[in-house]
C-alpha cells in the first residue's frame, strides 16, 4: 500500500537523544542503533559497531510522522508538485509516510491511473507514499469507482477530497460497498449550496471585509449526514480536515453512539483564526477556511482528548502566479509538509496548549491507525522510522528553503522554532540538516 524508490538501508547510531515514543511508553535518554534499516537496540553507551554516529544530545528522537492528507498534483500539475518533490518535502518535514489525494488531472479513479502513480513512486518517491482513489468516477458524484479493483491495485482508501459527495444516496452506497474493498472512506464535508462562493469563515471578520462567508454549518451538516450514514451502515468513516466546533461535537456524539468515526485536523486550523485573513494574503485562503478563536480552541481540545486522532497537513501546492492575484481570485490551499511540526511546536506546544507527547502521537501512530498503516515505533525489530528534532533551533520560513515545488505557505516570513535534524524513513536516512 506504500511505495518508494528502492535504496540500500542504512546502519546508524543516534547517540544520547531523549527518545520519546509515547506509544511504546519510552521517554529516556538513550542510544538507538539501526542495523540494515531495522532498529536493533536501545541502551546507553551502545557499541557503534563501525556505524555512523549521529550526536543526539539535547535533541528529541521520536517515531517519524505520517501525513494522511497531501496533494502531490501528479498527474496534471507537475509544475506545482511531483511525487519526487513532494516526498522530498515530506522527508524534510520529518515524515516517513504520506498519503496522496486523488483529485488530480486525470482523477485517480481507475487502476490504470493508480498503476502509473505506483510505478512512478517506485522510481522517484523519497519516502513511502500511498494513494487514495476517488469514491466517484471523475469525482463527479454520480457513479462509484471500481473500488475492489482499485483496492487490489494498491489504493490506500477512497475519497473525493476537494469535492463533497453531494448526493446522500451515493454516499450510502460508497459506505456499503467499501466493505467489499476493505479500505476506508474519507469524506470532504461541505454542503455546496451553503458554502457557495464562500471565501472565508462567515463571521464578524467576513462581514467587515466583505468576503463571502463560508459558514461552519456548511461543513457540520455534512459531517452529521455522513456520520448518520456510517452509523446506519455500521461502517467506519474518516472525516477530513475538520474545521468547526459543530463538526467536532458531531464526532463526539457519534463516538458516544459507537460509530467508528475518525477525524483529522490541519496545522493551519490549529494555529490560525479568521482574524489572520484581514491581511488579504492569498496564502490564508483555504478550504475549509480557518475559523473563529472558539473553533480553534475546540479543535485543540479535540486533538488533545483524542476525538481527533490525526494531524493532516492538507499540503496543497499552488503555482506562484496563481496565488499572486487578488484574494478573491486565488485558489484554495496552502502547503504544510515542511512546516507542520515547527508550526505546531511553536503555536501549540510551547504556549502550553498541548503536550509534546500528544502531538507526536497525533502526527505518527494516530494517522497511521486510520488507514491501517504500520505504526512507527522505536522498538527493536521494527523498521527504522525516526525523526530527530531540535526543539530549541529557530528559523525564519523562507521561500527559497522549500523542497516543495510550491511555496504557498501561510508561515512565509514568520519565525518558528523546532527543526527536523534527521529523518529516517523505512530504514533509510532521507533528510539531514
Amino acid at each position: 500500500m506504500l511505495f518508494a524508490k528502492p535504496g540500500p538501508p542504512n546502519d546508524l547510531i543516534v547517540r544520547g537523544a531523549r527518545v520519546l515514543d509515547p506509544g511504546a511508553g519510552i521517554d529516556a535518554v538513550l542510544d538507538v542503533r539501526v542495523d540494515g534499516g531495522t532498529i536493533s537496540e536501545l541502551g546507553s553507551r551502545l557499541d557503534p559497531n563501525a556505524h555512523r554516529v549521529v550526536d543526539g544530545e539535547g535533541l528529541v528522537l521520536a517515531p517519524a510522522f505520517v501525513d494522511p492528507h497531501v496533494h502531490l498534483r501528479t498527474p496534471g500539475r507537475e509544475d506545482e508538485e511531483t511525487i519526487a518533490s513532494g516526498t522530498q518535502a515530506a522527508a524534510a518535514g520529518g515524515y516517513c509516510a504520506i498519503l496522496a489525494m486523488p483529485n488530480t488531472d486525470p482523477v485517480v479513479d481507475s487502476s490504470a491511473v493508480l498503476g502509473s502513480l505506483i510505478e512512478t513512486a517506485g522510481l522517484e518517491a523519497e519516502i513511502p507514499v500511498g494513494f487514495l482513489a476517488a469514491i466517484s468516477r471523475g469525482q463527479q458524484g454520480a457513479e462509484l469507482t471500481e473500488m475492489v479493483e482499485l483496492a487490489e491495485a494498491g489504493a490506500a482508501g477512497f475519497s473525493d477530497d476537494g469535492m463533497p459527495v453531494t448526493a446522500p444516496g451515493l454516499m450510502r452506497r460508497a459506505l456499503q460497498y467499501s466493505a467489499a474493498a476493505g479500505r476506508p472512506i474519507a469524506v470532504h464535508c461541505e454542503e455546496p449550496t451553503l458554502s457557495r462562493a464562500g471565501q472565508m469563515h462567515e463571521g464578524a471578520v467576513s462581514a467587515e471585509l466583505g468576503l463571502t462567508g463560508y459558514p461552519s454549518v456548511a461543513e457540520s451538516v455534512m459531517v452529521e449526514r455522513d456520520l448518520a450514514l456510517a452509523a446506519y451502515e455500521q461502517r467506519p468513516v474518516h472525516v477530513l480536515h475538520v474545521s468547526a466546533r459543530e463538526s467536532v461535537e458531531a464526532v463526539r456524539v457519534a463516538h458516544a453512539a459507537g460509530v467508528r468515526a475518525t477525524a483529522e485536523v490541519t496545522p493551519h486550523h490549529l494555529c490560525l483564526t479568521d482574524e489572520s485573513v484581514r491581511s488579504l494574503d492569498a496564502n490564508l485562503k483555504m478550504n475549509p477556511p480557518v475559523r473563529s478563536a472558539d473553533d480553534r480552541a475546540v479543535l485543540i481540545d479535540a486533538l488533545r482528548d483524542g476525538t481527533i486522532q490525526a494531524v493532516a497537513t492538507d499540503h496543497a501546492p499552488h503555482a506562484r502566479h496563481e496565488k499572486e492575484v487578488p484574494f478573491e481570485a486565488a485558489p484554495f490551499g496552502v502547503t504544510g509538509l515542511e512546516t507542520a511540526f515547527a508550526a505546531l511546536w511553536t503555536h501549540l506546544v510551547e504556549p502550553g496548549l498541548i503536550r509534546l507527547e500528544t502531538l507526536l502521537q497525533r502526527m505518527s501512530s494516530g494517522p497511521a491507525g486510520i488507514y491501517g498503516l504500520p505504526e512507527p515505533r522505536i522498538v527493536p525489530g521494527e523498521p527504522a522510522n525516526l525523526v530527530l528534532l531540535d526543539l530549541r533551533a529557530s528559523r525564519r520560513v523562507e521561500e527559497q528553503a522549500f523542497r516543495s515545488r510550491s511555496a504557498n505557505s501561510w508561515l512565509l516570513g514568520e519565525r518558528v522554532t523546532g527543526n527536523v535534524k534527521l529523518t529516517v524513513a523505512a530504514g533509510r536516512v532521507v533528510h539531514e540538516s
Partner: protein
Amino acid sequence: MTDIRVVRDDLLPPRTGERRHLISISDLTRDDVERLLATARSFARSLEREMKKLPTLRGRTVVNVFYESSTRTSSSFELAAKRLSADTMSIKASGSSVDKGESLKDTALTLGAYDPDVIVIRHPQIGAAQLVAQATRAHVVNAGDGKHQHPTQALLDLYTLQEEFGRLDGLHVAIVGDVLHSRVARSLIQALALVEARVTVVGPPTLIPRGIETMGCETSVEIDTIAAADVVYVLRMQRERMQEGANYVPSLREYTTRWGVTPERVRAGQKIMHPGPMNRGVEIDPRVADAADALIETQVRAGLLTRMAVLYDLLTTGPVGVKAQTLHEVA
C-alpha cells in the same frame, strides 16, 4: 524650486517615512480623517476662484486604473488630479491588455515602470488594491475593490455631513438596503464609527451580513426605524452583484414595497444621501431623490474636493520629488 515652508502644520500628514496608501478606512485614525476633511475644505475655497487650477502636484503622475465601470469616481479622481496640476493617465480594463488576459500583477508592474506617484485602482475583486501596493512603488488609492472598501466615498460622505450639520459626532445615520454586497456601506460604517456617529443598518435580513454589529452599528429589518435618524443613506440595490438563484430577496417588487425609501417613510427635514448610481423607483422613490432635503449632488461635489485632499495628503510626505508650495500658499 522654492523651499518647502510649512505654514500650517495641522494640515500636513505625519511624517512616518513609510509609503502610505489609502486602501481601507481601517487604515485611518480620527486625526487622519479630521486632517483630510480640513484639507478638502481649504480646497473648496480655492475652487471658488476663477482660476481653479493649483500648481501643487505639478510634475507628479497619477494613474487611474478602472476594471469596473464608473462615472463619478473615475471622473472625480481625474479632475482632482488635474486641478492639482498632476499629469494623469486613465486606463480602462476593456481595450487594454487586460482583454488579452494580462494579470493584475503584470498590469501593475507595467504601469509601475513609468514610476507614477499614485495609482488609483478600482477592481471587482477584494484584495486588488493590496496586490498593486505590493507590486509597485506608487502610493495606492483604493477606488473600490469588490465588496470590501471604497474609502474615498466614505470620506466624501463625512465631508458632506460635516458641511450640512457642522458636526459629525452624535449624528445618527440610517443605512438602508443591500449592505451585504456594499463596499460603500462597509467603509461608511467604519468611518462613522471613527468619528463617533451612530449608525443603524436597515434592510432585508438576508442582506445584512452576520456579525456586522461588531463594526459598531445597530441593525434592524424594520424600515420604520429610519424615522429616528438624522440622515437616511440609501444604498443601491446591486442587481449586478446578485448571483443567480441566490434568493436574497424574492423579488425587487417585494424589496421596494418593504424597504424602498418613499416620501411616506421619511420625515420632513431628514437628509437623504445616496452614493449613486441610483435605481429610481427601486431603492429610492424619485420624489425623495429630487427633494430639497436630498444631498446627492452635494456628495458628488464633495467627491472632487475629498479626492483632491487624498492625493495631496498622500504626496505631501512622498519620497523625493517636486514639492513646490505648501497648501497655505496655494489655497
